[in-house]
Every structure is written in structure tokens, then in C-alpha cells.
């Protein structure tokens, strides 16, 4: 596999993951708990997109927009019905509730659409070749959509009052409250926005690969890894973390590790040593473990923006 291809794959995966990671890092730092149902928000977005585009036969773009909006609403609902009632509870209780929620949502999707993988039935993608790598038109679209969405988020965070309030809440809640920020209202917006982004991320992932009920769970580990790598609360860190993970997973699989071990002169392995593809998801996880061993409190929460 050419190096350019590796970079390309990494960026594509990283951008999809980044959409999810930025939402998660925001809810983690503002709501102060690890929301294990975040992957299911992506799942809901993907299935709703399927509902609107395939079941209801709307144009894909409109379907996507409806789906994303609805996912945001679902996120707000999850807060209203469950997490709001647990505002004062210890983080563990919230985590367990989110776990229960994720299981329920996952299986509701499975009950409605069945356990088999589904596709969006879009027209066959054109393939472009360059520099020894190839990219499909679908992947190009994904990159553009993800990229613009991230730019939009940056603008939201820095050019709007809402964004400013979100940043304030994330950095220091009590200080923000003292400055008269209506915490609950901002929280509602946070859920809506992060829900939308998660839904978009999920739809894009499903667009490129496929859609099946375990998608949410499969993605949650890398999403957490990216968010923690980048520093919880740091949106740019989350995106960077997602890209790093994209690289790590792709490079990790392509590198002939016996030559690396040779480099360190530890011992000599005669054959080539590759990490089996099946362990791909373990790579993200191992990176996370490494980071947490070295920095048990996580990488210092970066101050967003600077």
C-alpha cells in the first residue's frame, strides 16, 4: 500500500471519527461524565438517514439533513428524560445510565431494521487515481462534508455568543454561572449540536461502509480514545486525536514490525511481523492505555482556542 494511500485512509477515517469525537469531548467536559451512548447517537443518525433516503425515498441530502436534526432532538430527549435527573449524581451513575441507554437504542434499531447490514443505495461511486493512491467520489464528498462541518463548529465556538458560553461552561462551570450564563439552556444546545454532529458522523461512516446495529458500539472505543488523546474538553485536540488514531491504525497494520524491532536491536526476528488486521481496533485502545499510563489524569485539558 502506498504511503499516500495510508495518509488518505487515515484522513478519511480521522475525519469521520473527528465529528464524533468533538461532540463527545464537549459533552464529557460540560456534562462531566463519559457518555457511552454517544456511539448510539451516530447509529441513530445513520439509521434515520436510511429511513428518510431509502424507506421514504427522499433525496439523499434532504434525508441527511432531516436525520441529523432529528438526532439532535434525540440527544436532547436523552438529556431531558434521563441525564437531567441525574445532574447531581456521581459520574458513575451517569455512566451506567448511558450504558443502559446505549443498549436500549442499539436494540431498538435492531428490532426495527433487523440485524443485517444495510446500505444507502447510492449510485456507484467514481474512482479517481493519483500518486499511487485511489479515492472514490463518495470519499471525497465525505471529506468535504466533514471538513466544512468542522469549520462550521469552529466558527460556532468562536464567533457566536452560544459558542462562547459553551467554551466558558467547559472550562469552568462555576465561574460561568457567576457570570450569569443560563447553564441549562446552554446544555440543551450542547446536546442538540453534539447530537447533530454525531448523527452526521454516523451517516458518513455508514455511507462509506455499511450500516448495522453494532456500528455504535464498534466506534465508541476509538471515539473515546480520540477525545482522551486530545484532552477532554479540547475540540481541536479531539479532531487531532482522531487523525492520529487514523494514522496509527493504518500505519500500525502496514508496518513490518520485525524491521522496527531490528532497529532497536532487541532481538532478531527472521520472518516479517505484521499486526493481524483483526487487531486493528486494538491499536486505538493500546494507544489510549499508553497515554493513560503516562498521564493518569489524561493529557492536560487544553484550553480551547489557545
Amino acid at each position, binding site marked *: 500500500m502506498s504511503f499516500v494511500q495510508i495518509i488518505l485512509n487515515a484522513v478519511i477515517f480521522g475525519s469521520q471519527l473527528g465529528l464524533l469525537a468533538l461532540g463527545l469531548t464537549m459533552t*464529557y467536559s460540560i456534562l462531566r*461524565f*463519559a457518555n*457511552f451512548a454517544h456511539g448510539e447517537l451516530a447509529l441513530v443518525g445513520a439509521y434515520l438517514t436510511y429511513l428518510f433516503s431509502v424507506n421514504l425515498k427522499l433525496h439523499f441530502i434532504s434525508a441527511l439533513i432531516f436525520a441529523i436534526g432529528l438526532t439532535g432532538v434525540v440527544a436532547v430527549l436523552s438529556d431531558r428524560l*434521563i441525564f437531567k*435527573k*441525574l445532574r447531581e*449524581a*456521581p*459520574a*458513575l*451513575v451517569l*455512566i*451506567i*445510565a448511558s*450504558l*443502559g*441507554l*446505549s*443498549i*436500549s*437504542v*442499539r*436494540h*431498538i434499531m*435492531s*428490532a426495527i431494521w*433487523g*440485524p443485517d447490514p444495510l446500505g444507502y443505495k447510492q449510485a456507484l461511486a467514481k474512482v479517481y487515481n493519483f500518486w499511487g493512491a485511489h479515492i472514490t467520489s463518495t470519499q471525497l464528498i465525505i471529506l468535504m462534508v466533514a471538513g466544512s462541518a468542522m469549520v462550521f463548529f469552529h466558527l460556532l465556538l468562536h464567533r457566536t455568543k452560544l459558542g462562547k458560553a459553551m467554551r466558558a461552561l467547559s472550562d469552568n462551570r462555576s465561574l460561568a454561572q457567576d457570570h450569569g450564563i443560563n447553564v441549562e439552556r446552554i446544555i440543551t444546545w450542547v446536546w442538540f449540536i453534539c447530537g447533530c454532529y454525531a448523527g452526521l458522523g454516523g451517516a458518513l461512516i455508514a455511507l462509506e461502509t455499511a450500516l448495522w446495529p453494532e456500528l455504535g*458500539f464498534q466506534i465508541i*472505543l476509538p471515539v*473515546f*480514545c480520540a477525545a*482522551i488523546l486530545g484532552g477532554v474538553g479540547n475540540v481541536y485536540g479531539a479532531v487531532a486525536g482522531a487523525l492520529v488514531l487514523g494514522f496509527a491504525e493504518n500505519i500500525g497494520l502496514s508496518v513490518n514490525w520485525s524491521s522496527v524491532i531490528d532497529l532497536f536491536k532487541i532481538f532478531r526476528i527472521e520472518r516479517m511481523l505484521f499486526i*493481524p488486521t*483483526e*487487531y486493528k*481496533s*486494538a491499536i486505538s*485502545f*493500546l494507544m*489510549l*492505555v499508553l497515554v*493513560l*499510563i503516562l498521564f*493518569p*489524569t*489524561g493529557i492536560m485539558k487544553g484550553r480551547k482556542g489557545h
Partner: protein
Amino acid sequence: MEFGSIIVYFTIMIGIFAILALGLNVQYGFSGLVNFGHVAFFAIGAYTSAIVTTAGAPFIVGIILAGLTSAMMGFLVALPTSKLSVGYWAITTLGIGEVIRLVALNEEWLTKGSFGIEGIPQPLSKLIHISNYPVLYLCIVWMFVGLSYFLMAKLANSPFGRVLKVIREEEDLALAMGKPVFIFKLKAMALGATFAGISGSLYAHYITYISPSDFTPIVTFIVWAMVIIGGKGNLAGSIIGAVVIVVFFNSTRYLKDFLHMRAEIVASLRMVAIGILVILSVLYKPEGLIKEKKKTYDI
């Protein structure tokens, strides 16, 4: 299946899960350690016992080794994780559980990969007629249940149990009292893992065929549901939780005939119901069905 054998099946599964839930309860209920990878210890116990006994060792060796390897794994997991905050610990243990499953899936030389291990020998099977064997196995399982609970009850009431409780409630206070918290956490994880390993072994020898698909994170979640619903920090609670979930899980199998729905949909709805039950428990009955007892002294 006739009614008698259904009851036997239920009771055996309740017993196996009661020990598994006890393991998690030791880690979470008593010590406040968040372990989202509990299925890993279950799997390690099951595979250890299966591998060793299919290679010729007797059951008792299998189950003891199962407990020991799981305990070791518990130690290893606790080593890097016990200094982490709750959310990070949760994610890390979840990841560890997944890595274990991936190892089971890929290391075919050890675990026969996705083919699984079959023909796991059953203890004392020569002693009794094959149609009555399940009853004998039931006794074996519940003997282990009794032993586990007896041991844990003694420990919970001992100074060791007391320290675990402080660590759960207020770790800084435990430190200020001179208790080496880190070491206790290691021990609590290892202890809980031991119980999980034993229940894994019992599972393997009952079903006689195990594969990586038996050990998905759903199992972890179901055991958590047992501990949450039954009551944490509470031995009777683990059994009640196991009863509630196992009965619910298996009885809904028969519902599909009533409801005229396809089996997969009922299976999904079952999980949805458990998910909702957990959420409701957390919202409205956080101590679970059975509360922790107050320890009083005569003065």
C-alpha cells in the same frame, strides 16, 4: 423440553451468574471499582478450564487454574487503571475486555479461534446416568455458589471488607487513615476476577462448547444489570439480581410464541427491556432491590 429440565437449566444458569455477579459486586459494590470488562475474566476462566481439561486434566484442576489465571488478570488490569478517574477506568476496562475477546478470536493455536472449543468434559459424568446428570451438575454449581458466598460474607465482615468500603466511599479518607489504597484495589480486582473465573469454568463445563461469541460486552452489561438491580455491596442482592435477569432473559424466549413475533425481534426487545430496567433502577432505586445492611455492634 419438559418442565423439570427447564427448572434445572434455569437454576444452573442462575448459579453460574450469581457467582459472576458476586465477582463484579466485590469490585464495584464493595470497593467502588468500575469494571466494564468483566466478561474478560469470565472468558479467561472458561478458556483456561476448557483448554486444560480437554488436554486431559481433571475438572478440579481446571476450575482452580481458572480462578488463578483470572485473578492474575485482575491484578494486571488493576495495575495501570486504579489511579484513573471513573470515566477513564470504564473505557479502559471496556477496551481490555474487547482485547481479550480479540485474542480469543485470533489466537487459534490457543483457543481454536472462532471455531471454539468443543467437547469440554463434564465432571463426575461417569457417576450418574446421562439423563440425570444435570441435577448432579446443579449440585456442583450451587456448592460453588455456597462456598463463594460463604467466603465473601466472612471477608465482607472482616477488617478487609471494612477497608474496601472506605475506599469505595471516600478514598482520600482511607489514605489519610494510613491504608495503602492502591494495594487494596489490586486485591479487590483480583478477588472479583477469581469469582468470575470460577463461574467461567462452571459455564464451560456445563455448555461443553465455548467460542468467542459467548463473551461479548453484552455479558458484562447483563452482569452489571444484575448488580445494579439486585443491589450493590450486598451479597443477597447479587443472587436476587441473577434470578431476576436470568428468569427474565429466558422466560421471554417463550413469549415469542405468545406474541407471534420473530425470534430476533423478541431477542432485541428483551435487551431493550433490560436496558430500560437499568435506567429506571438508576433513576429511581439506586441502591437496588436489596439495600446494604447496617453493621451494628452491641455496646
